[in-house]
């Protein structure tokens, strides 16, 4: 304890000194990017690669939700905001650049004879009103409903697209990530689930016994998502107040360029069609 009392003075002085220097922090090549926690992991890897080719540049990515991305850019707390939806009508003061699209595919087992489901049928299955494949033109077997765990962005997108509330869903299996969802459906011919479209397409092409169901007459493919035709998808945007200059402009151009396609697909998103 003597040790403590002797060092107390130093600790207090140190903290005071740090406060004092805090006001004089340099603001050179430093970008702050805040917003959607869906985009944050992608922005982090983009920033990592950008920093590697631009020595001296620091890009700090902060997660906290799309709403915060918008608010921080407006208040000038962030140079760039991350917003995982299209901008709303009252956000006309901001400019958005789409760096990727996030799409969800409804998947069933490959041997399931059901070719397509309507919006109403999917809602009925997920709310427990339809419990048998026979009711939607399939085999006489019960449906295993696979849902995502609470808090997942895929769940949010799914719910908002079908205008469902989380407690209304009657799920038999709750899964965490995409791989787990694909494994569950591939191992159960009666299961229906939804996963990131990039993962589903990749797994189906590798021979995993799953099938992607079309939605609203549009086939579920990354190409359809990239073109913005697939209904169950959303843009992942970087937003900013006015025309940018310098490092911020370079970073957005870099994030939209074809040289980062591997990073976008690596996070199970779809690169936008126009590059």
């Amino acid at each position, binding site marked *: 304890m003597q040790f*403590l009392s002797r060092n107390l003075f130093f*600790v207090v002085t140190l903290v005071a000194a740090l406060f004092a220097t*805090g006001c004089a922090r340099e603001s050179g090549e430093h970008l702050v990017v805040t917003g959607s926690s869906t985009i944050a992991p*992608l922005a982090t890897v983009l920033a990592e690669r950008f920093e590697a080719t631009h020595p001296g540049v620091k890009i700090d990515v*902060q*997660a*906290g939700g799309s709403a915060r991305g918008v608010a921080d850019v407006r208040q000038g707390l962030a140079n760039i905001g991350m917003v995982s939806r299209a901008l709303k009508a009252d956000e006309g003061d901001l400019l958005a650049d789409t760096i990727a699209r996030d799409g969800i595919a409804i998947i069933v087992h490959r041997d399931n004879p059901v070719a397509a489901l309507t919006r109403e049928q999917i809602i009925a299955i997920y709310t427990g009103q339809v419990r048998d494949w026979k009711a939607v033109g399939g085999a006489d077997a019960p449906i295993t409903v696979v849902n995502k765990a609470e808090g*997942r962005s895929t769940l949010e997108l799914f719910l908002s697209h079908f205008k469902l509330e989380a407690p209304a869903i009657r799920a038999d299996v709750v899964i*965490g*990530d995409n791989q787990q969802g694909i494994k569950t459906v591939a191992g159960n011919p009666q299961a229906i689930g939804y996963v990131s479209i990039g993962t589903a397409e990749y797994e189906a092409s590798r021979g995993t016994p799953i099938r992607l169901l079309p939605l609203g007459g549009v086939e579920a493919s990354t190409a359809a998502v990239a073109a913005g035709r697939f209904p169950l998808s959303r843009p992942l945007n970087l937003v900013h107040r006015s025309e940018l200059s310098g490092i911020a402009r370079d970073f957005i151009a870099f994030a939209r360029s074809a040289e980062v396609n591997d990073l976008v697909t690596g996070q199970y998103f779809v690169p936008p069609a126009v590059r």
Partner: protein
Amino acid sequence: MRIDALDRATRSDRLHGRWMGLFAMLTLLVPLLLIGELLVDGLPALGADFLLRAPTDAGLGGGIGSVLVSTLWVLAVCQGVVLPLGLGCALFLVEHVRAGSRLERALQLTLDILGGVPSIVFGLFGNRFFAVELGLGFSILSGGLTLACMVLPLFIRAAEQSLRLCPDRYRSAAAALALSRWGFVRRILLPTAAPGIALGVVLASGRALAETAVLLFTAGYVTRWPGSWFDSGRTLAVHIYDLAMNVSGGSTNAAASALVLLVLAIGIQALAVALGRISRGASA
């Protein structure tokens, strides 16, 4: 008393004991299951490389080296503020404030209210006050100071309780020997209360380590190696949350990081117990 009544009593006692034992075993099962699950999920990813490298590919690759360093920095800032402030406040409460006085009641009420505030409120406050108004931005300093505000009441309570445990006859003896008040505090009160204060540090660190939302708002999300206290740094709990929730395929690394967090928490506990024992030994 009749013999068979006595016999029945001991039999029911024995039965009672067995039931209690069963419940005790069930309680033991909880940590076993928890650690078992984490070991199965996370152990394959754990290695020296995992502990020493910074995360790459949004946490799917690399390790948690930089995250671990940020966590320790945040914790150090937090304890560096909490220990002097909290100990001072606890000493003031015990030594200088008359029990039952208006000041004492006001202080206790403030501590109770502060202790009951949900952590997310501290997160919003810290973001607003430290990060924006004081201009510290998303930084290790913002995170540590916000955490300090949050765990301060917890620490003061623990310290106060252990200070009050000091027997009155020690006080009388010190007075009889004409020891000054500060001398009594420094040489007798603090050493005897040291184990309890150490426990307060453990409790405060435990809460600080567990915090996610607060730190996401203040210390931030950046996984780079922290260069100074003004750099944003992601802590372990935030890293685990992000891997489990926002990164596809991140569950293995999330479990491995959780194992490290668990070891860290146990390590701090062991350290505090050892420190408490040493300081008690020194005073004896």
